[in-house]
C-alpha cells in the first residue's frame, strides 16, 4: 500500500530570485528596468538643472506670444500678429499637404514603374531600371535642391509676361501661368457661397470649414451610394434572368446631374490668374518650393516603392499568371485582377515605411524655403525665442503623432487586404 504525501511545500526565499531559474530572468529584467529608468530620470533632471543654470527654465508660455513673422503659404488665415502656436499650426498643415500629395504621387508613379520594370519590352524595362537606380542612389536633399534650381533658372519671371510682345505667355487658353515663382492655376469660386463654419472660435487652432465643400461631398457621397444600388439591382436582375440591363447611362446621370445642379445653385465659376503689379494675382498659387519639394520627394520615394511593387509581384507564383491566361484573361486584366491583389499582401508593410520616410523627409523643406513645421516651429520660432529644447521636443512629438497615425491607417488597410485564412 502506498501512501500519498504532499510534496514538501517549498518556502520562498529571497535568494531564489537569483538562483532559481524560474525567477531569475524576471529578476534581471526588473533590475535592468529600474536601472534604465534611473538613467532616464538622471538625464532629464540633469538637462532641466543645466538649463536652469543657463537661465532657461523649460516653459511653453512663449507659444502665446505673437510670432511677428509672415508665412507665404498659408492654408488658413494667418498674419504676423498671430501667436507662435498658430504659426506652428500653419506649418503643420503645410507639412501635411506636401506629405499627402507626395504619398499619392509616389504611389502612382511607384506602382507604374514597378510594373513596367517587369515589362517584356526590353527598352521600357531598362528605362525604368535607370530611373530607379538614379533616384534611390542620390540623397533626396540633392534632388530637392536640383528641382528648385531648375524651376528658378529655367522658367520665365513674371515680368517676362508683360509688354506688347511678351517673352512668355500663359498656357491653356490663358488660364495657367508657369513662372519661376510657381505655377498659377485657376481657382474654384462660388458666387452664392454657403459660407464657412468657424471652429474653435478665436483660439490659435481655429479653422474654417467651407459649407460648399461639405455640400459637394454629401452630394458626391449620395451619388456614389445610388450608383452602387443601381449596380446591385442590375446584378440581381442578371442573376435572376441571366440578362444584364444596360446601366452605364443611368450611372453617368446619377453621378453628374446632381453635381451640376448643385454647382449651378452655388454659382460655381473659375477665378483666373492675371498679371497685376509685381506678380500674378487671382487663381491658386502653387509655389516653387511646394512643387520642388513635392516632385523631388515623390520621385525619390517612388523609386523605392517601385522596387517594393516589383518584389510583391515576383512573390506571386508564375502558376497564377498561367492559370489566369488559361482562363482567357488578357495580360492587363491578369495583372489588375489576379496578381496585384495578391501582391498587396507583400507590398503593404514595406509601403508603410516608405510613407513614413516621405513624411519625415519633408522636413528638408527649409532647403527650398518651404514653410513646413520644421521651418516655422523648428526654424523661425525656435530662432526668435531661443527655446530650442521646447521647440525640438514638440517637433518630435508632432512627427511622432503624424507617423503613428499613418501607421495606424495603413495597418488597418493591411489587415483588410491580407489573405483570410481559416
Amino acid at each position, binding site marked *: 500500500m502506498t501512501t500519498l504525501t504532499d510534496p514538501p511545500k517549498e518556502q520562498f526565499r529571497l535568494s531564489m530570485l537569483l538562483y532559481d531559474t524560474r525567477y531569475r530572468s524576471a529578476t534581471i529584467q526588473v533590475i535592468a528596468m529600474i536601472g534604465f529608468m534611473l538613467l532616464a530620470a538622471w538625464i532629464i533632471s540633469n538637462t532641466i538643472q543645466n538649463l536652469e543654470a543657463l537661465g532657461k527654465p523649460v516653459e511653453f508660455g512663449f507659444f502665446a506670444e505673437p510670432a511677428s513673422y509672415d508665412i507665404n503659404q498659408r492654408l488658413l488665415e494667418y498674419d*504676423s500678429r498671430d501667436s507662435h502656436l498658430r504659426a506652428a499650426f500653419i506649418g503643420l498643415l503645410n507639412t501635411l499637404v506636401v506629405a499627402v500629395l507626395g504619398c499619392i504621387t509616389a504611389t502612382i508613379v511607384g506602382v507604374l514603374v514597378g510594373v513596367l520594370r517587369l515589362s517584356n519590352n526590353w527598352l521600357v524595362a531598362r528605362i525604368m531600371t535607370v530611373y530607379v537606380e538614379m533616384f534611390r542612389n542620390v540623397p533626396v536633399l540633392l534632388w530637392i535642391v536640383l528641382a528648385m534650381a531648375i524651376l528658378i533658372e529655367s522658367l520665365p519671371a513674371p515680368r517676362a509676361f508683360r509688354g506688347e510682345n511678351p517673352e512668355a505667355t500663359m498656357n491653356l487658353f490663358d488660364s495657367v501661368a508657369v513662372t519661376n515663382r510657381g505655377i498659377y492655376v485657376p481657382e474654384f469660386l462660388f458666387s452664392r457661397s454657403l459660407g464657412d463654419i468657424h471652429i474653435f472660435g478665436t483660439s490659435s487652432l481655429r479653422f474654417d470649414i467651407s459649407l460648399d465643400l461639405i455640400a459637394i461631398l454629401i452630394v458626391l457621397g449620395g451619388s456614389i451610394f445610388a450608383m452602387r444600388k443601381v449596380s446591385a439591382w442590375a446584378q440581381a436582375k442578371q442573376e435572376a434572368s441571366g440578362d444584364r440591363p444596360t446601366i452605364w447611362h443611368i450611372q453617368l446621370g446619377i453621378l453628374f446631374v446632381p453635381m451640376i445642379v448643385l454647382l449651378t445653385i452655388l454659382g460655381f465659376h473659375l477665378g483666373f490668374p492675371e498679371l497685376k503689379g509685381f506678380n500674378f494675382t487671382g487663381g491658386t498659387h502653387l509655389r516653387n518650393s511646394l512643387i520642388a519639394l513635392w516632385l523631388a520627394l515623390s520621385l525619390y520615394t517612388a523609386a523605392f516603392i517601385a522596387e517594393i511593387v516589383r518584389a510583391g509581384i515576383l512573390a506571386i507564383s508564375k502558376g497564377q499568371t498561367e492559370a489566369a491566361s488559361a482562363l482567357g484573361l488578357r495580360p492587363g486584366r491578369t495583372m489588375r485582377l489576379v496578381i496585384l491583389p495578391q501582391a498587396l499582401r507583400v507590398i503593404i508593410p514595406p509601403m508603410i515605411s516608405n510613407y513614413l520616410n516621405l513624411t519625415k523627409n519633408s522636413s528638408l523643406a527649409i532647403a527650398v524655403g518651404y514653410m513646413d513645421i520644421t521651418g516655422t516651429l523648428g526654424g523661425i520660432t525656435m530662432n526668435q525665442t531661443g527655446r530650442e529644447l521646447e521647440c525640438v521636443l514638440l517637433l518630435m512629438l508632432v512627427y511622432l503623432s503624424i507617423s503613428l497615425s499613418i501607421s495606424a491607417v495603413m495597418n488597418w488597410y493591411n489587415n483588410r487586404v491580407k489573405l483570410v485564412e481559416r
Partner: protein
Amino acid sequence: MKKSVILGAATIAGLAAGAAVAGTVDDVKARGKLNCGVTTGLVGFAAPDANGEWQGFDVSLCRAVAAAVLGDASAVEFVPTTGKTRFTALASGEIDMLARNTTWTFSRDVDLKFEFTGVNYYDGQGFMVPKALGVSSAKELDGATVCIQTGTTTELNLADFFRSNNISYEPVPIETNAEAQQQYLAGACDVYTTDASGLAATRATFENPGDHILLPEIISKEPLGPLVRHGDHEWGDVVRWTLNALVSAEELGVTSANIDELAAGTDNPEINRLLGTEGTLGEMLGLDADWAAKAIKAGGNYGEVFAKNIGEETPIGLARGLNAQWTEGGLLYSPPFR
C-alpha cells in the same frame, strides 16, 4: 556639475553644456586657438579669399581678439554659421565668440542669455531692387515677392514694415546669402532685403552692380556687434575692450604704421596706457601688457579695418556714415582707457 556635462551634451545636442563652461580665456589659451563664429560668406564682412584665407570686417575682429589673447592673429578657427545655427553654436560652446553681423536686441541680450560686447557696425535694414523694376520707394512694393534670410531680425522688421504701411508682400524665406543672391538674380523675387551693409556687399559681387539700386528707406536700427555667452564676464571684457582698443586707436591716431614707434613711449598717457607702456590694464584683463598693441597690429585700427574691407575704396564702397568717430559726427565712442 562638471561631470554631468558629458551626458547632458550627448543627449540634448550640446544644449546644456554651455552652463558648465567657465573661464573661456583659459580655455582659449589652453587650446591655443580662438573659435570664432562668422557668416557662411558675405564678401567684405567674412568670406574666404582666393587662397582660402578668411577676410573681412568681422574676421578682422576675430583676428584682433586672437592677437590680444594668444599673440597670434592667425590662431583663429573660423566656424561658418547661418542665421539659424549661430546662437546654438555659441550657447553650446562650439564657438567662443560670434562676430557675424548680429543685431543687438533686448531679447537676444536678456532672454537668449548672450552678452553683446559693443557695436562694430551701426546698420539698418534696406531693400535692393533691379533698376528695371522702376521702383523708387519701398512703399511702392505692394504685392512684391521679397527674398529674406530666415532666422534674422530683418524677417521681423519686414513683417512690421509692411503691416504698418498696410501693403502686402510675399516672403520667400532663404537660408544663406548665396541662395538669396541666386533667387534674386533669377528674378524669383523682386526685392532682396537685409542689412544695408549686407546689400552693398552682395551687390558688389554681381556682374553688373549698376543694374541694381538700394531703396532710400532704412526701416530699422541694426546695431551689429560681437557677442559672447552670458555669465563669463572676464571673457566678455576681453572681447569688449579689444573692440574698444581698435576704436580708441583710431581716435588717438594709432595706426598699424606708427604703432611700433608709439609703443616705445609717447607723451600722451592715454596712448601709453592703451599700448601697455604705462599702467597695468593688460594685467587686469589677465593678458599681456601689450595685448592692445598686438590687437591693433593684427589688422590696424578700426578705421583701417573699415577702409580695407568695406570702405569707399573697396568694391563694396560703404561710407563711414554713422560709423565715424564721435569727433567726426559718427556714433563710435569708446570709453576711456584708464
